[in-house]
């Protein structure tokens, strides 16, 4: 059962890291535009300025 000495703090640290990540994402405004974020993920990249040469 000595393993608990490692596992319990480890579990708490992982949970705490999750919480910190959540609070950070909230603070940096990542939940402000959920609809837009969904579309941005699949939007095309900016088209190149010049049309690529045809091969």
């Amino acid at each position, binding site marked *: 059962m000595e393993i608990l000495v490692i596992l*319990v703090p480890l579990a708490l640290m992982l*949970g705490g890291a999750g*919480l910190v990540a959540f609070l950070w994402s909230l603070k940096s405004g990542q939940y402000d535009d959920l609809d*837009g974020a969904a*579309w*941005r993920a*699949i*939007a095309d990249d900016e088209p190149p300025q010049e049309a690529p040469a045809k091969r």
Partner: protein
Amino acid sequence: MQVTRDFSHYVRTAGEGVQHIDLAVEGVHCAGCMAKIERGLSAIPDVTLARVNLTDRRVALEWKAGTLDPGKFIDRLEELGYKAYPFETESAEVAEVAESRFLLRCLGVAAFATMNVMMLSIPVWSGNVSDMLPEQRDFFHWLSALIALPAAAYAGQPFFRSAWRALSAKTTNMDVPISIGVILALGMSVVETFHHAEHAYFDAAIMLLTFLLVGRFLDQNMRRRTRAVAGNLAALKAETAAKFVGPDEISQVPVATINPGDIVLLRPGERCAVDGTVIEGRSEIDQSLITGETLYVTAEQGTPVYAGSMNISGTLRVRVSAASEATLLADITRLLDNALAARSRYMRLADRASRLYAPVVHATAFITILGWVIAGASWHDAIVTGVAVLIITCPCALGLAIPTVQTIASGAMFKSGVLLNSGDAIERLAEADHVIFDKTGTLTLPDLEVMNAADIPAAIFELAGRLALSSHHPVAAAVAQAAGARSPVVGATEEAGQGVRATVDGVELRLGRPSFCGAEALIGNAFIDPEASIVAFSKGSEKFVLSVRQGLRPDAQAVIVALKARNIGIEILSGDREPAVKAAARALGIPEWRAGVTPADKIARIEELKQRGAKVLMVGDGMNDAPSLAAAHVSMSPISAAHLSQATADLVFLGRPLAPVVAAIDASRKALHLMRQNLWLAIGYNVLAVPVAISGVVTPLIAAAAMSGSSILVMLNSLRARGKSREIA
């Protein structure tokens, strides 16, 4: 005279040498629009940020200070095909957004704590039936306490504050039993852990907070979204005024920047955005939004004009008496104050339920303790059982029963074009059994329509429409719109107060007053609609008469039929003249109507109906309706309504059709039904669980299972409020 646009009011400084503006944009629907706008605006040199928020339909722009004029962004968006307006966040919206974020933070903390405490609780539950050492169990309990206590102190704030507010005001609400339950559960668990006991309820307490916060957050988020849409609509109305900044120089400025004493120019076809007095000029003005009267009023030097009046014929100079927030006809203000003061504080279903619930539960817990002591148990065991009763009855499902339904119902209403102004509007609307409609702007559309377009040859009508484009007169604008005219007639000249004329292929065209076109003879034998404005059109010697008026909303008749089918009483109370009201009532098949009604009369009628026990829904838009909107059981306004009425109404509906009125009634009735059902489900669960708790065999495992089971059941039932609804763009 030179006109400039002034947006400096909306521009704020965002950091070193960078300026920021928010624009509300019409017609942004998809990722395509988003990319198009962002690329189009980023292409302007010196723009450092252009980001679309698709949820709120807004664009945030930043650029190097002093290099660009914000008007340029609006022009650029116009080229891309979007109408944009500068946007100023209202303080109400800021508060909603902050509250929403706070709840989400609380929810994050509570969810984190629940997961970790659960992780520690499950080994204890399984260890209790196998071979766990008491020392290990105590260690796990202490760890749980370490996580749960600070988390509950933080995440419980919304409930503790609300409960404290209620108790200080010597009432109770749903948050009082919740707070008592959570605090007792945590307190007892700490004491139990101290005494190396087998059971601790940290998991139940923190899980309860998590479930309740989910409900709170959803509710708040819906409210925030509604507020954002309302804010955009206000910006899209683009209330500006032409203010004199020099003797001959005019600047188009937002209403918020106008001060009493300023002088503004009111051109024909413009809606007045301020209250003031005419100091120069002469014109006819349409005050139907203020009084409900559709006949035009003559305005000349000294005439007071109110925000919302439409200027018809001449140009006026107006001295502003009080800017934006408007001081009104003293009579209406007084009536409104009285009505608001008398507005019975409606007690919400949830609070009524908790007022019955809390004493019963607390008495049961108390009796349980006494019962066990009398039966010979130790005080310690009796108190533990009593607290277990409180934990198991803690109104988890009860706390979710109403907010979840409310969230889903307001979402459904939102989709059918109805915005909620007040939280308890759904419950009150569901009870409405008598509807009073205002006529002007509510049953009829606020804009003018040509009524006899079908009687006129299409080619002639089109020509009239093209000629009308050269006039600023609102009636002419209606003709132009009805004819779908695009290109104005070349060389048309307007004669103020008379009409427009032009010569095409040697034939003279005239549009305007019948006398201007020599068409008085036609008026004599045509049927004259009392409400219509008559315009004549002549092409050489051919003469035609057009009748222009506010038309009924396209689906008004269907809505009246639908309301009758739901056994709801209907009547019209209008400030307009009798013939106009009578015609509308007849067209819609409404037997009960009153014309020429003053705001005081409207209130008197509502009081009379109240005496008879009717629950009145008032639907109105004019400033003269504002007091009766406040006096009625529940009230609704179209989005085109006067500011004051919109602020007073419980619900606001968008668009041209009247159908949202019926949709809102249906949605709210269904929602109330589900709220009641949910309350019964919650009570049913308690009836089953309480005897188990009283008998003292409840373990933390049973408490956790019962709590999540009942919460999920209630949430699933709430989802049934999602009806099929129509999307309004």
